[in-house]
């Protein structure tokens, strides 16, 4: 029996090898995959670090012969059940010879597999990399194992914005980004990023660099320079990377902490600078980290108190430059992680953070003082179809005993086709959190929230059905609400392929939340209802042409304020790839919403590494053209032109970014060199 399977696998490999390896070396497949993932996973996030995180995974593929079930789940689209199938296959038939062998697993559809494979690599027993695998930087010179990727990007608004018209800014309106990453062998990497935002004078207003090594003896990972760090469910330490609740009801529930990772994003105020190292000895991993990093702050000059922490990273004139890097945070900490029985792991993290200046305390549960420390315990256990995971995080800052912030969850793979996930989170108001980002309703905040989430994903003959229901409560006042508030939401999505190469996606989300509105005399708390319905059609006509159409209908309702608004968004897209090294995307979008309340988010294709997820509102249209061209293996060029037109407006946007007129257009150009 086993022999028969082996034979079958070899046939499968021989059959797929030429096609796949060709596609991976020459085409723009990875860029396409990156786009598809973001399109599917992003709801209303505008967080660019998600792009970087997915790209990092593409460039640092996971060794399929070594990975455990948790590591595999870092890959987008790989849920608990899929990871289990892959691991079971490996346990049964032994190590994989090539990633293409994965196509022989019948339980995972070929199309899903082709989205997973770019994230994987095979290291055979001699320790050499699998020949059929090529990552984003496919060129390997026979003489050296050094690979260099150079990325240079320029974005520019074609309409002059108010801040530039009034000469408020020192620099030009170009946004310029340059990045270099050098990799040596599988183990070493060095990189640097410089960036200038629109209006900034210096080309290197933001600078970041790192040197990193991984998997050398007991040294699992080492980063000197800028790094990000994540453990457990991210309650104590987490980089911004995290898919929030999305049309995939199971994937985002459990965080897959990346540990120590070099930092290459452009979020200027959310990373560590210093050094971090992780060691692995048998089943025990130990991590140490130290960071001493400046950040932007508005500081009261007399008292030396931090009034606020602007996170936009804009330093366009003297005023904004004043706040640049005006305060400093010093962090040290350590973590351990122990895994046993191949299926259970538990860990502990502690860190201490001290600031040069104390924070101004203006609300009951704000940061107070200038010294903080946190610790947390986290666990992950797999048993049969069950996967339990969770974290308890303690705020030790002022030596008072406080309730820990906690999240506990379970994933159950009842069958290959049905996965259930649930979690309970409890983030107390006094867990004033510094660098954590737990799963929840509030983005970037892991405090003052209690919630219960349940969801499932069901692969039916009809298609893939996702459902989740999330109930949440904010026991104390929040930014929008002076009173305790509650809310809930549910989502239904069904994606099916009724006809060969024709895909339909139906989506419905309903959210109910307490918000405060100003009534005649005072603020009152009212229920806000938001509904989003969507139909999406995708047809792959041929290898070179794909059509996509989407229709969105949003309803925004506050009964107590007699507010009823709606909005539609409607687009048609064509992707044309006349040859495998050239991709052209064109999309026309028409929208009409009563106000920003009923805005519809529209995720767009963009230059690789740029995340475009715009809230479209008002009445108007938008269109864009994206070109990606790889004339030679060493070079790829991308270009984007986009235009938003709102016929009834006299001006667009507001403040310094106001445009006189009703047209907002922009171009972007990017070069990627690979040596």
């Amino acid at each position, binding site marked *: 029996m086993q022999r028969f399977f082996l034979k079958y696998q070899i046939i499968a490999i021989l059959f797929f090898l030429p096609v796949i390896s060709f596609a991976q070396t020459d085409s723009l497949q990875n860029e396409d995959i990156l786009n598809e993932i973001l399109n599917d996973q992003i709801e209303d996030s505008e967080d660019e670090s998600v792009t970087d995180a997915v790209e990092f995974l593409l460039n640092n593929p996971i060794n399929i012969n070594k990975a455990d079930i948790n590591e595999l789940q870092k890959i987008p689209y790989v849920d608990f059940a899929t990871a289990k199938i892959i691991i079971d296959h490996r346990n049964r038939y032994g190590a994989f010879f090539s990633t293409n062998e994965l196509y022989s697993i019948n339980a995972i559809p070929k199309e899903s597999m082709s989205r997973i494979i770019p994230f994987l690599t095979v290291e055979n027993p001699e320790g050499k990399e699998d020949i059929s695998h090529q990552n984003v930087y496919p060129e390997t010179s026979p003489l050296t194992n050094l690979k260099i990727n150079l990325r240079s990007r320029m974005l520019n608004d074609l309409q002059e914005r108010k801040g530039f018209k009034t000469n408020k800014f020192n620099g030009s309106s170009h946004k310029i980004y340059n990045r270099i990453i050098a990799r040596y062998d599988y183990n070493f990497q060095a990189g640097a990023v410089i960036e200038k935002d629109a209006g900034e004078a210096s080309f290197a207003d933001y600078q970041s660099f790192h040197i990193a090594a991984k998997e050398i003896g007991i040294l699992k990972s080492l980063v000197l320079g800028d790094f990000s760090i994540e453990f457990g469910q991210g309650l104590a330490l987490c980089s911004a990377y995290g898919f929030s609740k999305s049309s995939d009801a199971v994937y985002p529930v459990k965080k897959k902490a990346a540990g120590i990772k070099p930092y290459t994003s452009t979020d200027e105020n959310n990373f560590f600078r210093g050094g971090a190292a992780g060691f692995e000895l048998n089943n025990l991993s130990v991590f140490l980290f130290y960071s001493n990093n400046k950040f932007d702050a508005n500081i009261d000059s007399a008292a030396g108190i931090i009034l606020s922490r602007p996170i936009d990273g804009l330093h366009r004139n003297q005023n904004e430059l004043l706040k640049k890097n005006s305060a400093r945070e010093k962090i040290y900490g350590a973590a351990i992680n122990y895994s046993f029985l191949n299926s259970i792991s538990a860990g502990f993290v502690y860190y201490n953070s001290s600031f040069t200046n104390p924070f101004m305390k203006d609300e009951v549960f704000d940061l107070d003082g200038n010294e903080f420390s946190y610790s947390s315990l986290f666990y992950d256990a797999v048993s049969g179809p069950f996967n339990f995971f969770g974290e308890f995080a303690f705020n030790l800052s002022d030596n008072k005993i406080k309730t820990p912030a906690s999240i506990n969850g379970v994933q159950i793979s009842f069958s290959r086709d049905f996965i259930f996930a649930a979690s309970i989170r409890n983030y107390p108001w006094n867990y004033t959190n510094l660098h954590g980002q737990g799963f929840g309703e509030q983005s970037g905040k892991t405090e003052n929230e209690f919630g219960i989430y349940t969801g499932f994903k069901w692969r039916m003959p009809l298609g893939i059905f996702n459902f989740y229901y999330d109930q949440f409560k904010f026991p104390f006042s929040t930014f929008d609400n002076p009173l305790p508030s509650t809310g809930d939401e549910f989502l239904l999505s069904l994606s099916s392929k009724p006809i060969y190469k024709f895909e339909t996606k139906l989506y419905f989300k309903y959210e109910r939340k307490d918000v405060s509105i100003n009534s005649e005399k005072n603020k009152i708390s009212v229920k806000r209802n938001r509904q989003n319905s969507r139909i999406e059609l995708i047809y792959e006509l*041929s290898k070179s042409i794909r059509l996509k159409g989407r229709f969105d209908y949003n309803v925004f309702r506050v009964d107590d304020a007699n507010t009823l608004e709606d909005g539609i968004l409607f687009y048609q897209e*064509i992707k044309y790839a006349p040859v495998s090294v050239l991709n052209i995307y064109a999309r*026309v979008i028409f929208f*009409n919403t009563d106000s920003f309340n009923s805005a519809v988010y529209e995720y767009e294709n963009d230059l690789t590494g740029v995340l475009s997820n715009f809230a479209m509102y008002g009445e*108007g249209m938008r269109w864009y053209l994206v070109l990606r061209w790889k004339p030679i293996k060493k070079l790829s060029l991308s270009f984007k032109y986009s235009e938003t037109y709102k016929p*009834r407006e006299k001006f667009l946007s507001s403040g310094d970014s106001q445009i006189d007129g009703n047209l907002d257009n922009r171009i972007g150009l990017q070069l990627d060199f690979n040596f």
Partner: protein
Amino acid sequence: MHLKLLTAFFVSFTCCVIAQVNPGARQAALSNSDIALSDDVFSLFYNPAGLSQINWREAGVYYSPSPFGLSELANGFAAYNEPLPFGSAAIGGMTYGFDLYRENKITAGYSYNYNNKFFIGGAVNYHTVSIKNYGSDAAFYFNIGGLVYIADFLRWGFYFHNINRATFSAEENQIPVILGSGLSYDVLENISFNISVIKDLDRKASLNGGIEYNLNEYLSIRSGFSNEPSKFSAGIGIKYSLINFDYAMFTHQDLGLTHQAGIIIRFDSEKN
């Protein structure tokens, strides 16, 4: 009467100077839900991609003598399609209005047929408007469209009108900019069900549906609706030899009933 004329003008001109008059008694009977059907010569004015579905010579005339009972709004169209080795080319024209206000349009289109599965087309329009004692203006604008066979029984079509956002005089948005997309599904061999969404940049999106039932080789009946404006439509088609005669009527909630008719001649009925 004058009040009604005024209302009609206002209704059809809520945004634009030019009126949205469109040809085809078949299209009218289906309430313009047929973006993915687009298989006669009048597709030139809607989804030009549909033209290369017609690989024979075809000519059509259409006349709507008095929309909403107003002869001042009378409009007429004519179009001709010529099949070429690669795709189809068509030319057509329109006239609308009366002695005080007149619009004329000349349209030329081309559609390319890829494997009888994917059709893509474009049309260029030269549109003139003249208002007595006020003067006149003219503009060029372009339309594009696509149509694809997802299966033998399911088609998907879309168009984008006035992609260059041409306009009359200095005022913006006088010629409608429209995005339309629709599906056409053959429930049975002789019944097709159509649905479309049409969004004019300056108006609310309209959902349109329509059904066409070919009773036999001579007779078809059609009916449709649309919600913006609220409209109900119905019509018949009679086919005899080379000639198709189509009649349609539709109701507008405020303006009442409109009748229109058209004749299409197919010079190659074998391929029909």
